[in-house]
C-alpha cells in the first residue's frame, strides 16, 4: 500500500470515534500495547528523539531499497502514536518518505500531539524519520 492509502485506512478507522475521545484513546493505547518493544540493543542514546517529554526511541535500517523503522516509548499513548507513524512510514522507499504529506494526524484530531512544544515531540520524530530517508536516498545515488 502507498503511504496515502495507509493514512486513509487510519482515518477510516478513527471515523468510528468521532465525539468519543475515550474510544479514540483506548484505540491508541491498544496500538501502544500492540507495538513490539524495541530490542534493548537499539535503546541507545543516539536513538532517542530529542524534545519529547517521555523517552522515545527510533531505530532505522535500509533493506532492499526500503527504509525499515522501529520505535518505542516509555509512555503508552506516545507509543501508540509511534506505532501509527511506523505503520504509515516504515517499509517505503526514501523518496516516498521524503515526499510524504502526513495529513492523517490532523484528520483524526491529534494535531496537538504534533505541536512544536517541548512536551509533544512527535514532530521531532517525523523530522528524524525524514532525515534517515534523506541519508539513505544519498546512499542510493
Amino acid at each position: 500500500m502507498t503511504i496515502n492509502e495507509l493514512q486513509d485506512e487510519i482515518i477510516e478507522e478513527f471515523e468510528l470515534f468521532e465525539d468519543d475521545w475515550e474510544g479514540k484513546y483506548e484505540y491508541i493505547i491498544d496500538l501502544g500495547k500492540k507495538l513490539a518493544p524495541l530490542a534493548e540493543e537499539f535503546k541507545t542514546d543516539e536513538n532517542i528523539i530529542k524534545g519529547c517529554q517521555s523517552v522515545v526511541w527510533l531505530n532505522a535500517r535500509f533493506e532492499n531499497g526500503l527504509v525499515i523503522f522501529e520505535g518505542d516509548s516509555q509512555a503508552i499513548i506516545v507509543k501508540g502514536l509511534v506505532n501509527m507513524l511506523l505503520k504509515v512510514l516504515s517499509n517505503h522507499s526514501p523518496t516516498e518518505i521524503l515526499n510524504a504529506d502526513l495529513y492523517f494526524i490532523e484528520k483524526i484530531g491529534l494535531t496537538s500531539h504534533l505541536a512544536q512544544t517541548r512536551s509533544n515531540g512527535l514532530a521531532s520524530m517525523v523530522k528524524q524519520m525524514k532525515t534517515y530517508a534523506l541519508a539513505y536516498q544519498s546512499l542510493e545515488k
Partner: protein
Amino acid sequence: MKLDINKIRHDFPILEQSINGKKLVYFDNAATTQKPSVVIEALKNYYEGYNANIHRGIHHLAEKATAAFEATRKTVKSFLNANSIEEIIFTYGTTDSINLVAGTYGRKFINAGDEIIISTLEHHSNIVPWQMLCEEKGCILKIIPINDEGEIILEEYEKLLSPKTKFVSVVHVSNALGTINPIKTIIDKAHAVGAKVLIDGAQASSHLDIDVQALDVDFYALSAHKLFGPTGMGVLYGKKELLEAMPPYRGGGEMIKEVTFEKTTYADLPYKFEAGTPNIADVVAFKFALDYIQNIGKTNIAAYENELLAYATEKLESIEGLTVIGKAKEKVSVISFVLEGIHPQDIGIILDQQGIAVRTGHHCTQPLMQRLGIPGTARASFSVYNTFEEIDALVAGILKVKKLLS
C-alpha cells in the same frame, strides 16, 4: 475571613471556558497563574491611554507613564517590605534576576576556589547561572541534599558551610514538590560564615508573606506572572550596599549618568540595572495584580489554599496505586504524584481530554527527579480561584486515567 470563591472566579475571565467540551479545571498555577480583569484592563488602558517612553520625555503621556511605572516600584517595595525603592530592580523574571546576580555580584566577588551552595530542590534557573559562573571563574558548586520527604537536610547544609562559602542560593518553595524551606535559618547560618544569600521566590511569592528586612536576605527574586501579573516581568530585591558595590549588568540607555567615548558614568540605583526601554506596560499592570492580592489578603489566600491542599492530599492518597511525591511538613498548595505503572505524560494527556490542566514531566528540576529516582511526576497546583469541586473532578479524572491505562 471566609472568601467568596465564586466572586473571585468571576475576576478571572479565562476560567469561564470549556476544553474538549468539559469545564476547564486549571491546576497548573505553579507554572503560571491566570490574570484578573483588573490586570488585563490595566494593560489595555496603558496602551490606549498613556503609552510613552518613561523617565525622559517631558510631555504629558511620558509623565503619566513614568508615574505609573514608579508606582509599581513603591507597591513592590511594600509587598516585600524593602527598606527603599532603590532596592527594587525590575527584571524580565526570576531567571533574569538570578542571572543578574550571578553575572555581576558573582563575577566581581566570587573567585577561583570559592564555594557556592545551592540545594537539590533547585529549578534549573537557580542551577545553570551558578554552573556558568563556576565554569568561568573556577569556583565550586556544593549541593545541599534532601531527605525522602523532599526536605532540605539542615545538618548537611551546616557541614557544607565554611569560610570558603561565598554565596548561598536556595529556593524558598520547591516548584516541583511544594516544600517550604526554612530560609531564615539558611540565611542566618550563611551570614555566620560571611556568605551572601539569594532566595528564589518564584514559587513562594504567591503563597507566603515575604519580609526581606525580617529575613535579612541579601537578594530575593520573583516573577510577576506567578502572582497574577503579566509574563516577562520580574523583580530583584537587593540590599542597597550590595547593589551599589555591584557593576552594571547590561549596558545601554537608561542606566547611564553621562556617556563620552572615553568614559561612561552609571546612573544611580535602581536605574543602573535597568538598561534600555523596560517592559513598561507589564510593570504598570503588575501593580494592579499586587493590589488585587492585598485586597483579598495574603493570609486569607494562604488559609484557603491550605484547605485545598489538605483536601486534595486526602482524596488523592485514597486512590490505589497513587503515590504523593514530596511530603514535607511545611508545604504550599502543590501536589506532585505518580501512578503505579503509568507514565506521567499519559496521565497528563488523559486529564487534558477531560479539561483538566496539570503539569507533567520533570518540572525543570532534573537533578531533583534523579535524586527521587523517577522520570517525572504529574503536578496539580492550586490557586485561590480553585474549588473543592475541581479537586473532585481531578480525582474522577485520575480514576479515568487508571481505567484507560491499566
